[in-house]
């Protein structure tokens, strides 16, 4: 039998939409204009390829069925208007527009930020983080409404859950193209809960993709192999704590950098929405983690403290471990809002090498200041190198390889050795009485690794000089 739905073009392979529309026609006896409006909305929902909108709409209609007939029509039209405003297409458009505006404003502010002004850069990172916070909270609400309550736990009530941020997102240090490390804390872990949050994750991913396309905000690929939130990011508080603790236990010899990173990740994990039952989950996580790893050092209790500690272990905005990952992302071609060329140039200026004093201060443990002095140019080159690697990808790597400047083997050694150098710096900090979280002794292996780096850094400098004199544009950031 042909229904009005067919005449109004609602896709016939959308059974839920069809059923909903049929109920509208049968139950409400609406006049044609209202039906047309409903039809148009269902078409939009169907074209957005999610049935859940139909389900949510059916709930609204169920409520309307209990409404007296005299007020039914205006109520329906009012609901339709409200619904139109909050439809997925409108939501996507609105969020996309808000993000573009924020990008434009933050990008412009970044352009005005003087080179080396780390607090200034951080301020912009915080603004962008807040924008992404708001985005995810809104998407969470949307998806939760679509999917309905989470599965029931042992007590028969829907379990509580809490989206949380971690990593640089947790520290509110996002740049435009940073991985957005977020996950879900769940009250109980059951197959039904896993299934629910698989659908939840897919839906969040769909919406992010609709808003941002292939670029822009994306969940951390390391933690979510499919590019969307995966099962691995859905944990009970105990599972999450164990995951972070496990990372540290896996290391035969945990380095200071590892330690600070873990502590910082723990203390930077923060709920995306405060209050409500979900907060108890965060408290459970924090308590479990603290039992396993000991209390969070006071230095890591605040965002600024965490940032300072991470800077010291090479994860800050001025370090090859941190700068390229964060700042290089500013160099990628954004979808809109920022002139990528100008942003790239501005970002390039923000690489701040160690000052001679910093280098000298860093070199007093058996690694002589000459080494750090010798490393000045290489460190700058490395900043550029790592940034270029992050920003432009395989083509630049291939060029470096072709020119004999680097290969993967070299890069791995470089990271390892620089980590050892940073440990020296940290140990020196402790000896100088500067406050620092727990520190490890420097090993003979560290000393060898650093000494071993001298010839390689020397040759890297040679290569960079050769390139810069031969073709000054070779390393222009793309």
């Amino acid at each position: 039998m042909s229904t009005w739905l067919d005449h109004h073009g609602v896709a016939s392979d959308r059974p839920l939409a069809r059923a909903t529309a049929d109920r509208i026609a049968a139950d409400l006896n609406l006049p044609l204009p209202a039906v047309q409006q409903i039809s148009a909305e269902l078409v939009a929902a169907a074209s957005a390829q999610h049935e859940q909108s139909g389900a949510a709409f059916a709930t609204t209609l169920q409520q309307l069925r209990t409404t007296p007939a005299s007020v039914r029509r205006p109520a329906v039209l009012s609901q339709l208007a409200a619904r139109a405003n909050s439809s997925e297409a409108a939501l996507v458009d609105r969020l996309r527009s808000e993000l573009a505006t924020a990008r434009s404003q933050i990008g412009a502010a970044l352009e005005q930020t003087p080179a080396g002004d780390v607090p200034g850069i951080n301020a912009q990172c915080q603004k962008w983080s807040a924008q992404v916070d708001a985005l995810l909270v809104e998407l969470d609400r949307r998806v939760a409404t679509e999917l309905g309550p989470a599965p029931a736990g042992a007590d028969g009530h829907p379990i509580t859950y809490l989206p949380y941020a971690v990593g640089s997102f947790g520290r509110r240090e996002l740049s435009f193209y940073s991985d957005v490390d977020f996950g879900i804390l769940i009250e109980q872990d059951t197959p039904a809960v896993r299934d629910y949050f698989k659908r939840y994750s897919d839906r969040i991913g769909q919406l992010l993709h609709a808003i941002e396309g292939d670029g822009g905000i994306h969940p951390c690929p390391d933690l979510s192999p499919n590019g969307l939130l995966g099962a691995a990011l859905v944990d009970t508080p105990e599972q999450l704590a164990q995951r972070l603790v496990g990372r540290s236990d896996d290391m035969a010899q945990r380095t200071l950098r590892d330690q600070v990173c873990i502590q910082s990740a723990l203390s930077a994990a923060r709920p995306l929405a405060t209050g409500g039952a979900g907060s108890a989950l965060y408290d459970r996580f924090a308590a479990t983690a603290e039992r396993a790893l000991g209390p969070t050092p006071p230095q890591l209790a605040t965002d600024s403290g965490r940032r300072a500690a991470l800077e010291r272990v090479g994860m800050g905005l001025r370090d090859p471990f941190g700068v390229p990952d964060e700042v290089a992302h500013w160099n990628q071609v954004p979808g809109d809002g920022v002139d990528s060329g100008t942003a790239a140039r501005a970002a390039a200026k923000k690489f701040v090498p160690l000052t001679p004093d910093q280098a000298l201060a860093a070199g007093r443990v058996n690694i002589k200041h000459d080494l750090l002095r010798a490393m000045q140019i290489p460190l700058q080159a490395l900043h550029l190198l790592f940034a270029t690697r992050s920003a432009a990808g395989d083509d630049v790597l291939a060029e470096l390889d072709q020119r004999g400047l680097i290969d993967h083997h070299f890069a791995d050694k470089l990271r390892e050795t620089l980590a050892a150098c940073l440990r020296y710096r940290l140990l020196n900090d402790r000896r100088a009485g500067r406050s620092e979280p727990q520190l490890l002794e420097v090993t003979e292996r560290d000393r060898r690794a650093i000494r071993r780096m001298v010839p390689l850094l020397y040759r890297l400098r040679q290569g960079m000089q050769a390139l810069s004199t031969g073709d000054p544009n070779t390393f222009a950031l793309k």
Partner: protein
Amino acid sequence: MDLLQQLQRELGARSDERFLDAALTAVRSSARSDELRQVASWALAGAMQRDQETSYGLLQMLAGAAMARARLLAAPVATAVDESALLAALTGLQDRLDAGLERTRALDEFALLGAQLLASALPRYFDMRLRSDPDDTVFYWASGVLALKQGASAAGDPAHLL
């Protein structure tokens, strides 16, 4: 003033890396095998006196570079070298150093390997494939040769003129 005196005067007067820049340029310019051997011996001795300093590695590099070029000037070497064979030979030399082979003698033995490294086409970071434990001596020597080669390449010198 001969090359050795020149280097002796410049060591300490410049930063280590600048010193090595100048030293490698001088090594590249020298055509006297005996003079280069003198430089290699002096650099090795200097390195051993500075084994806790950055200059240790840079002097070892100079020793390896000077000795390799000295050997290349003295007699032709094969330019087609198997990378694995060369790695094995360098590793073997390091093993013997670890087992007590005297350093100056080891440097003599390194001369041929270094000359082959200098004259043949190998990955620029070939030395990264050398193991690092428990001692780095051969690694530094090989790195010095590669630095000599890298600098020559940047200066546009054909490899056979090294």
